């Protein structure tokens, strides 16, 4: 099927099977590699992107749901030269070890803070627990979120 949608502000048109997940459209059709495959069944969160402003697991969003959608990936959230405040906080806190989950962690955290600028510890735990980090960077993720809250409040 033909699907037309916006990715990071650019209109994209792809011809793909209707049940092809957004994750693989981004990676193998469009070539945006910052969104990661980890599990394929919404258990790890490595593929998290924003769809019309909401954090979603792109492995669960199919091509037929995409027409007219606005997608933001990690590449669209900020860049090395112009970082999003959440990315600044992640860098200052030096969260990443292997880093493979961090695109998803950052997209999830950015979405949370956009909807709730000052979440409680329990709210952070609830929202962020869908994103698996095998290296165990959770203490620094918490720290970076607190720093991002300060940055965004400033």
């Amino acid at each position, binding site marked *: 099927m033909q699907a037309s949608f916006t990715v990071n502000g650019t209109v994209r048109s792809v011809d793909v099977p209707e049940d092809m997940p957004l994750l693989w459209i981004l990676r193998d059709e469009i070539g945006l590699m910052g969104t990661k495959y980890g599990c394929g069944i919404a*258990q790890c969160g490595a593929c998290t992107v924003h769809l019309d402003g909401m954090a979603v697991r792109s492995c669960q969003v199919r091509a037929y749901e995409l027409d007219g959608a606005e997608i933001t990936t990690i590449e669209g959230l900020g860049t090395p030269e112009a970082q999003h405040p959440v990315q600044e906080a992640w860098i200052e806190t030096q*969260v990443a070890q292997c*880093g493979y989950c961090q695109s998803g962690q950052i997209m999830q955290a950015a979405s949370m803070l956009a909807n709730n600028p000052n979440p409680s510890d329990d709210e952070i735990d609830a929202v962020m627990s869908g994103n698996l980090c095998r290296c165990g960077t959770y203490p620094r993720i918490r720290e970076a979120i607190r720093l991002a809250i300060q940055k965004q409040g400033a």
Partner: protein
Amino acid sequence: MGKLRTLTRRTFLVGSTAVAGGVAFGIYRAKAPFENPNLAGLPEGAASFNPWVIIDAEKITLIAPHADKGQGVFSAQAAMIVEELDIELDQVEISFGTPDKAYMNGALTDAMVPFPQYDYGKVAEGARRFAGGVVRAALPIMGTGGSSAMPDSYDKLREAGAVARETLKAAASQQAGVPIEGLRTENGAVWLPDGTALTYTSLSAAAAQIEPVTNVTLRDPSQWRILGKPMERVDIVAKSTGTLPYGVDHKTDGMLFATVKVNPRQGGVLISHDATAALAMEGVVDVFEITGGISVVANNTWTAIQAANAITCEWGEATYPPEQDAHWTALSASFTDDRLNAEARNVGDVDAAPGAEVIAEYRSPYVAHAPLEPLNATILVSDDRVDVWTGHQLQMFAVDMVAKITGVDRDNVHLHNQFIGGSFGHRLEFDYLKQAAEIAMKMRGTPVKMTYSREEDFAHDFPRHITMGRGIGKHENGKVTALDVQIAGQSVMTSQMSRIGFSLPGPDTQLHEGAWDYPNLNLPNIRVRSYKETGLAPVSSWRSVGAAPNGFIYDTLLDETIHAAGADPLMERIRLMGHDVSVKVLETVGEMCGWNGHDLGAGRGRGVAYVFSFGVPVATVVEVTQTERGIRLDEVWVAADVGQVIDPVNLENLAQGGTLFGLGHAMNCEITYSDGMAQQSNYHAHESMRLYQAPKVNFTALENNPKIKGFGEPPVPPAAPALGNAIFAATGQRIRELPFNKHIDFV
């Protein structure tokens, strides 16, 4: 640490070699005169002073050969060079380099001699030097593992930077006609007395024409600009902006995408298959048999995985007992003389020692590596060469494997090592690479990226080896008097080495590592024996290898005996510890958490554990609360001695991560077999730890260890026993089997 040492005592100049208009200098340890691999094809006017530094008119390139799977060695290796080279990390390019024996890991042999790593005596150190020489001559291994990258790199990379610096100064002295004593180096340039700066890049051609300066003195840590202080990892911005390419992100023109479906009964054959439905799917390019299974090549990874799922296969039997119970039964029957792997330690007389007995049996299950980046490799087989893009920890063996399958000479197999999205040991294995090579051979001329589905990754992991422990602890008059520990396990080294084509030359030391070398030298009676099983599931090194199960067994038995004696768990561990560096670690963790005088109240408890692994003593205290819904992990304190801290930020991150890795798997994870297949297929069934379960982890690093040590693995082993000991302190329930969630709930 930190003595000024001159290089001339221990090294000699190999010589300078004119190549392609440039000159390369070599300075190596006396017994390792390997050629500098950078010399081949070095362009006009460029200089490579040693295997780690290349300078031309445009840029400075540093080679950081150790694989980076998240532990941060890419940054740390470069930092060691730039510290002596007087340049900043953002002024250099860093490369993983080309696999070559010049990058052999000189620290891997530290663990190969029959001396505990806390023994720095003449005999033990002599044996390590001897073993190093034998390995260097017989089989120089380039590899990253065993927490060895820091000890391997520490001297030689600083030397590499110092030699480059002094040679550049000599070149500047000659070019400017100024005595070398009047020159200084800073910010990537040699500075003349009049304030003129000659950049290193502008000096490369001149430096290429002169004899290298090898009489260099390494700086004392008190003079360091970069090392030992918090540094920003060079990959941190890319990893926080989605711009760091991992192997799985590799892109090249005309690339096709593949996946595999291999017999989930490990080692079993493919009897027959039906790919009719798969071949009818849009986007499927080809389906063909490979060793033990099927490969699908398609125009994207998702289509390849969908098609693989649509293939029906008849599989042969596994090479091990199909049901999990039989694995435990086999281990249970392995505590016999004919299965004795080693009597690794025997002090005093445990049988005759006085005191009341604690008798216990412990179990540590198979556990998956499951790094978040699924295994993958992109391979292009061309007419006269093979290119491989993958992240691997044993780079030269990886080249050999691909050379063998493709029939191309190993000199024409080019491995481009990639950043790795976690490994925990899985990237020491070769099956995925061999499968990718078989596919690339079939698709000769077309680059193919082979990616495992997560389900394939779980089905074809070689998990942590299964282990059973039996112990007797004795105590009298409030003191521990004897420990008798027996450990039976599926031999991880036998299994792992068989896949590289080697047989294990002696006992599998991983079956008692972390137990035999527990330095409780004040305990008068102690015996550690290990027993080897080889007929169970194929297994591999899992972050900290034997020290994880053995540390759990040993330290838990010790804790049980201390409680039975009525002694304080921390004070009695300190009393028994005859190793000063370790005593300080235990005292430090006690001070950090306020062990004394802190009344936790009902339903709360603390457990302390200590394990010595990879030369690093680590003590961990876990505090838990029993809630109505289960055990909550409140806070953790960790103290460790790595000898020399290179980057305190990264070290703290590894302490936190390694501790949570150890805790999460101890709480929640096991791999079990049924019908010969792993029953856990994805993270829902093997999730380790999620954020809501993660406690705060406090960390203190000490530097009393006589040598620098690596820290990728040592935080893992004490986490499980510390948690088990804390659960006992809070609830009175002693859990002797991992994972703990088989016996208790966690919130």
